[in-house]
């Protein structure tokens, strides 16, 4: 791995998370230090990643920038609950790493893997407070929705890969409508677009730093990233633009409605996030506006979330009506809220203003501007709805100011919002580079003030209208209702649960012998059926002349088996089985595989010991079985025996490819330095396979132990005195 290559940063994130988890057991402060230093390094590294495409770089800068802020913020957020910090920061950095990996991916498959990793790690983050059933439910919803969408997307990627003959993103030129539809499923679920929007408000059960990261800069932004990445690919597909436009519009409106109708601050913000993501989908045709809008959104939204987290931490509630007058007491929180809300609404001189100007300018001749007018007005109303109750009256009860370090990160986010608002020129070069890669050739001329133009008048109209509408809409308390898509989702999963339980019950309540019947029955039916249909009944002729001692050994095997069958006493049966097994081992020796024979001998011995353990407690006389049962059993066992033998026999009549065997034989002495080819193959040539097999052995040991632990009467090992 090259130092400071993209994969280095992904690995760094994972290692950093694990280190912080470990260090936190010793000292919380050192853990914080590790995390902050590490994420600063990651952020600094993003400036030097010139091998990346401009798009990846913008996103990775945004992601690691907000990541640094969130890391600083979580240190203060968890200063009261230090014990939990390690686990949280571990999950957070796993998530951070997978997000960076997603942005760095140069092939579709890699992108998919990281995409699913963000789903899984966000599951861990949302369900962080696993003691609460609501958090668990929310985590499950998020995972199921985004994971299911991810599977659709994988199918879409496979289509794209087949159509273009390559999975490398740079080589993908065009795509069909099918691929487009499947990939859109992935984007819409991940970015919480209508009708999958319901997982996002639920995901607010996560600790606030996680929400700030997931829902402003990371998780949900994977959707717009993919939109930007694939818009050139799908430029000829009607579905791409149309679906993005309509679904985006629907989500923008639904999100605004959600934000206006909720009381919980985090849910209001979640609604606004859904809405903003909808706007980003609409903007897919104008990447320039999309990128700016997205950057502005991640800045103000993360600052807002962090501000809400402070209020939650200090006053134990997120209800806007219970937080009456809270902002009057603390100028810093007031600054955070007012600056970031101003950026959201698009007031001068915030970064949000620049972005919104550009959005309006690029959509000036489009009908969609009018629905967007409503959406943006909704933002204004929501902002007033958030600010007004918290400002309007004096409240003595909520007089507690947060520590300075607590306010640092959100304030930094606000400062960046203002700086980028006044000097948007800073972004010129990198965005121009990106646009050139995306095939949009425009010179970008970002300025704060463009004069009194149409977009400016439009903005003013929005702000005016929101102030006019606010008194009628903003201060009402609405009844929370469950949306139709959420109901459908719940109903669907209830059905899944019920039917899977039924399926399990149908297969799972028999005794052991029934399992064997089912298993062998299917084997006979399917394998036997295949055998008869495809392979016919032509076998290799038997080789003549088995020697007399070979016959004798075979007879020993059969005799042992017969003894086991006929035995009245269970121990005699065990001895019969062992006899049969030792006979097999003898056969192995006769056909020159001593290693196998040795193993067989030992395994037989071990089996006898274990079986003795089991049956020592049972009555040793076996009751005679009923005739009918014997008949059924013999049909099954003879059938399976015949099937196995015929398969083995048939396999022998096909030519073997002996290249591996020849290689082993030739090189065992020279490369493996051993005479015993079997052993050399096991421990040297095929060592990786052996590791897997050893793992299976290990699991078997652990598995048996855990079965025992489930038995009634198990006493856990006593602690040492």
């Amino acid at each position, binding site marked *: 791995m090259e130092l400071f290559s993209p994969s280095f940063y992904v690995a760094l994130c994972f290692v950093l998370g694990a280190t912080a988890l470990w260090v936190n057991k010793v000292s919380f402060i050192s853990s914080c230090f590790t995390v902050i230093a590490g994420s600063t390094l990651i952020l600094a590294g993003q400036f030097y990643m010139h091998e990346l495409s401009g798009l990846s770089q913008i996103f990775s800068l945004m992601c690691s920038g907000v990541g640094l802020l969130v890391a600083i913020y979580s240190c203060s957020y968890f200063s009261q609950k230090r014990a939990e910090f390690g686990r949280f920061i571990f999950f957070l950095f796993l998530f951070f790493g997978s997000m960076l990996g997603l942005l760095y991916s140069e092939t579709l498959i890699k992108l998919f893997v990281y995409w699913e990793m963000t789903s899984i790690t966000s599951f861990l983050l949302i369900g962080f407070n696993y003691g609460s059933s609501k958090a668990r439910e929310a985590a499950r919803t998020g995972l199921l929705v985004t994971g299911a969408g991810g599977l659709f997307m994988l199918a879409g990627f496979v289509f794209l890969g087949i159509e273009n003959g390559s999975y490398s993103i740079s080589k993908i030129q065009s795509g069909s409508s099918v691929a487009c539809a499947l990939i859109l499923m992935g984007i819409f679920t991940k970015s919480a677009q209508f009708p999958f929007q319901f997982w996002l408000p639920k995901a607010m059960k996560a600790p606030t730093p996680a929400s700030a990261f997931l829902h402003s800069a990371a998780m949900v932004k994977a959707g717009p990233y993919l939109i930007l990445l694939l818009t050139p690919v799908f430029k000829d597909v009607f579905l791409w633009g149309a679906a993005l436009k309509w679904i985006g519009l629907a989500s923008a409106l639904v999100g605004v409605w959600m934000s206006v109708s909720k009381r919980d601050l985090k849910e209001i913000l979640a609604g606004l996030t859904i809405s903003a993501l909808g706007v980003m989908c609409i903007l897919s045709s104008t990447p320039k506006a999309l990128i700016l809008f997205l950057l502005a959104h991640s800045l103000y939204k993360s600052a807002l979330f962090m501000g809400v987290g402070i209020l939650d931490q200090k006053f134990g509630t997120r209800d806007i009506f219970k937080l009456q007058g809270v902002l009057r007491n603390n100028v810093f929180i007031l600054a955070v809220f007012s600056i970031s809300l101003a950026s959201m609404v698009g007031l001068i001189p915030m970064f949000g203003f620049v972005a919104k100007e550009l959005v309006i300018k690029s959509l000036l001749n489009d009908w969609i501007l009018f629905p967007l007018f409503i959406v943006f007005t909704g933002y204004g109303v929501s902002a007033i709805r958030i600010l007004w109750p918290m400002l309007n009256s004096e409240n003595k009860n909520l007089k507690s100011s947060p520590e300075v370090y607590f306010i640092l990160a959100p304030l930094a986010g606000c400062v960046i919002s203002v700086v980028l608002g006044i000097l948007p020129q800073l972004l010129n070069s990198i965005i121009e580079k990106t646009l050139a890669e995306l095939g949009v050739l425009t010179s970008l001329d970002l300025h704060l003030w463009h004069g009194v133009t149409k977009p400016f008048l439009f903005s003013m109209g929005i702000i005016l209208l929101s102030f006019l509408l606010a008194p009628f809409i903003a201060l009402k308390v609405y009844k929370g209702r469950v949306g139709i898509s959420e109901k459908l989702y719940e109903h669907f999963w209830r059905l899944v649960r019920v039917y899977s339980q039924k399926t399990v019950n149908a297969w799972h309540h028999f005794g052991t012998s029934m399992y064997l019947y089912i298993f062998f029955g299917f084997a006979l039916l399917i394998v036997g059926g295949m055998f008869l249909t495809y392979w016919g009944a032509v076998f290799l002729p038997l080789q003549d002349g088995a020697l007399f001692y070979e016959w004798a050994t075979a007879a020993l095997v059969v005799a042992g088996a017969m003894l086991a069958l006929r035995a009245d006493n269970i121990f005699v049966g065990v001895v019969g089985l062992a006899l049969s097994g030792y006979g097999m081992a003898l056969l192995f020796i006769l056909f020159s595989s001593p290693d196998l024979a040795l193993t067989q001998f030992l395994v037989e011995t071990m089996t006898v010991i274990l079986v003795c*353990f089991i049956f020592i407690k049972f009555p040793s006389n076996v009751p005679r079985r009923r005739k009918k049962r014997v008949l059924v059993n013999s049909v099954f066992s003879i059938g399976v025996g015949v099937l196995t033998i015929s398969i083995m026999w048939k396999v022998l009549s096909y030519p073997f490819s002996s290249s591996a065997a020849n290689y082993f034989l030739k090189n065992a002495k020279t490369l493996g*330095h*051993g005479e*015993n080819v079997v052993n050399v193959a096991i*421990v040297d040539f095929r*060592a990786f396979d052996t590791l897997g097999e*050893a793992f299976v*052995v290990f699991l078997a*040991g652990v598995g048996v132990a855990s079965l025992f632990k489930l038995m009634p009467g198990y006493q856990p090992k006593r602690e040492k005195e």
Partner: protein
Amino acid sequence: MSTLIIRVASKYLVAIILLYSLFMFLRGHNFPGGGFIGGLAAAIAWSMYGIVYKKTGITRNKFEASTISAAGLLIMLLSGIISFGSKTIFKGVWFDIGPIKLGTPLLFDAGVYLVVFGAVVNIVNFFEEAFKWK
């Protein structure tokens, strides 16, 4: 199952089988044998001891048998990682010590030995303990 004869004999037998298992393990590279076989033989010796003396094999205070098994896995993994210097994994690395060639495959085989030994002893331990439950 604990007559005097077996009790006396097993003391010697356990030692002999354990020695035999080591022998099997070490000769494995050139003759029939190896880690798997050695580990199984050792496990058999141990379970015999357990049966005869009604003790659960390895003293449960110091090492869990499953820990030994896991340690074996770790050793296997480590021996595979040693060759990472030449940018591959699980490739034998060899050293000459006089006329003897020692290599990571030996370490790997030792890991197999421990995994098998630990897993089987773990199972047998639980079987033996199950008798003591009411």
